[in-house]
């Protein structure tokens, strides 16, 4: 009997070229994703006179520095324009598939790669964005890597890694009404802490995850890095195969049949052992919101801002005090009802069509009392949303409908102002993340839309079911 293996071990074994005497593995990279920060890596290759080894296995699209309004007029900021143009020029010169500014397929890479069928089960995928792990939802091993490592992948199509440990997160039971995939992952991070997954590849499992759509799984895997995990995965199943089939770069015909046979063998063997197991009861998860400057500060929307005085560890107490000062919050304040200045719906966490449907479902019941932006994750998501009339729902409710980009999530091409409090569907509530001095509360798309209508953080469940 062969040793039972996890999904992660099967994909890992399939990509091992060699293990050196120091125990480091040279791993083959099936696909790599390049965004508009890859230019530092292309520069390095040019300086060293090295060619791109396998351009056919790469995908490039600008997302960080792309404007969300009036892009037909080009990019006004010369620094951003230079980065976006450089990515296109480098991609074209090397023969890399590139979706440019005016291509309807352009968008946030973590949205575009699954949408195009570029991210496939069973592959090792690397990308220069730290949220590359999003793609693991398809049953692949997707890692975010640094700029030098991007240069290494461009030149060699390989990466050196020490084999991470494995961790299984089981979410059993059923999600309650108004509880989104975002709430599941925020609840997990709050439970295990922002460093709770360091050194591990996580497999999300259990009935709640099995019942999730592919887009919900992408949201969950997106935030694996927010508790320090190397990446997150979900075993491929019929939901995965239905999602992938027919996408532009997905295998076709006899190759599709062969791929399916390979992919059906990927899920972890029943007796496979994980280095760590974590369990979460789906029915106990409420809509979540963060109060501090790290995703581990997520609490149910029904909670109050915690009091540092109750924290015995002096280091943690100092962290809490600093976070409360930055967020301008008093201990004991109820989070529901906390007035906000802005709402942001978008980012690689929550900018797919199902996210926009969930937000529109709430937005359609009122009028935004604060500035609220909706930024679709790709040109094709935007087109689909418009075909369904979601843009009209948002506009009628006073939300701004914008063009695909990372937008204010990175606080560069767009940003929020100092001291502004924003209910946001992004993945990081760090200090200055969405703009210098900006205060970010992480929430799901429906919770963000509800906050826009109330002008305050709101328990979306109190709005009741629509229609």
């Amino acid at each position, binding site marked *: 009997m062969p040793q039972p293996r996890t999904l992660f071990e099967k994909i890992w074994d*399939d990509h091992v*070229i060699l293990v050196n*005497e*120091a*125990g*480091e593995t*040279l791993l*083959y990279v*099936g696909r790599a994703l390049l965004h508009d*920060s890859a230019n*530092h890596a292309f520069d390095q290759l040019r300086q*060293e006179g*090295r060619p791109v080894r396998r351009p*056919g*296995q790469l995908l490039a699209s600008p997302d960080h520095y792309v404007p969300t309004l009036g892009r037909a007029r080009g990019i006004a900021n010369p*620094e*951003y324009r*230079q*980065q976006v143009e450089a990515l296109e020029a480098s991609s074209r010169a090397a023969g890399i598939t590139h979706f440019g500014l005016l291509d309807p397929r352009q968008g946030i890479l973590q949205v575009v790669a699954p949408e195009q069928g570029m991210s*496939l089960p*069973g592959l090792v995928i690397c990308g220069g964005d*730290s949220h590359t792990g999003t793609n693991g939802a398809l049953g692949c091993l997707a890692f*975010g*890597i*640094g*700029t*030098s*490592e991007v*240069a*290494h992948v461009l*030149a*060699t*199509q*390989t990466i*050196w890694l*020490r084999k991470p440990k494995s961790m299984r997160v089981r979410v059993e039971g059923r999600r309650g009404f108004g509880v989104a995939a975002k709430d599941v992952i925020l609840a997990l991070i709050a439970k295990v802490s*922002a*460093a709770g997954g*360091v*050194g591990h590849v996580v497999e999300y499992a259990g009935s709640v995850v099995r019942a999730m759509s592919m887009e919900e799984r992408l949201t969950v895997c997106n935030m694996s*890095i927010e508790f*320090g995990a190397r990446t997150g995965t979900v075993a491929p199943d019929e939901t995965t195969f239905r999602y992938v089939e027919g996408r532009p770069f997905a*295998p076709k015909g006899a*190759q*599709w049949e*062969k*791929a399916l046979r390979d992919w059906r063998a990927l899920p972890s063997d029943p007796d496979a052992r994980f280095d760590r197991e974590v369990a979460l009861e789906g029915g106990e998860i409420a809509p979540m919101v963060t109060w501090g400057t*790290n995703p581990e500060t997520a609490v149910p929307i029904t909670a109050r801002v915690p009091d540092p005085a109750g924290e015995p560890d002096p*280091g943690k107490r100092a*962290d809490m005090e*600093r976070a409360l000062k930055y967020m301008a919050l008093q201990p004991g304040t109820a989070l529901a009802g906390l007035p906000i200045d802005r709402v942001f719906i978008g980012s690689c966490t929550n900018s797919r069509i199902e996210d926009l449907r969930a937000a529109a479902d709430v937005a359609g019941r009122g009028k935004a009392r604060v500035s609220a932006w909706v930024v679709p994750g790709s040109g094709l998501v935007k087109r689909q949303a418009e075909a369904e009339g979601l843009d009209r729902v948002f506009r009628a409710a006073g939300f701004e409908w914008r063009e695909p980009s990372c937008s204010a999530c*990175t*606080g*560069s091409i767009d940003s929020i102002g100092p001291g502004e409090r924003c209910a946001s569907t992004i993945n*990081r509530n*760090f*200090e*200055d*993340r969405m703009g*210098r001095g900006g205060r970010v509360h992480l929430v799901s798309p429906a919770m963000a839309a509800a906050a826009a209508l109330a002008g305050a953080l709101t328990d979306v469940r109190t709005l009741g079911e629509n229609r």
Partner: protein
Amino acid sequence: MQPFTTLKAVAVPLDEANLDTNQLSPTRFTRRARGPGYEIVLLHQWRFRPDGSENPDFIMNRPAYRPAQIIVGARNFGCGSSREMAVWALSACGFRALIAPSYGDLFYNNCFKNGVLPVVLPEAVCTDLRGQLHAKPGAEIAVDLPNQAVTGPDGKGHAFEVQAFPKHCLLNGLDDIGITLQHEQAIAAFETRYRAAKSWLF
């Protein structure tokens, strides 16, 4: 890449846990080309006031800590974004070694690729070292990579673990791509097998 062997230098304590790469290298500098003047990037929002002048209250700006080449940090140092600029910024300011109980994974790997040694020591040891550095500004710490040992200002020694391959590369200042391409035959043979096994990818 500049090799790292041993270093005895002033160390500065940073007490904040979860010090993320957005703080180490703020987003508005990520497009900046690496070169002269890059040192303004590091912890910019902490080291400088909104008008661009230095913040004299921030610990790194105090005279005794200015020559520091070592940082003693807290848990989950360098968490968050993959931006390698966080390490570039540290390196531009002359930092060659870090000591902390744990690091963000991506940041940890990026350190080795840029000649910066990230040492992991137990939380209690890091807290104690930071306490000594606060009590005696300008105190020195010694880091010995070949022998994998740190000596604190009090003369007490602490052994640390580091993986053999990154250690070898750091000791010899070896560039990753060059090392990998020495395995060209193995890579090419693997690719042939891979293309046949995963024909649906090509």
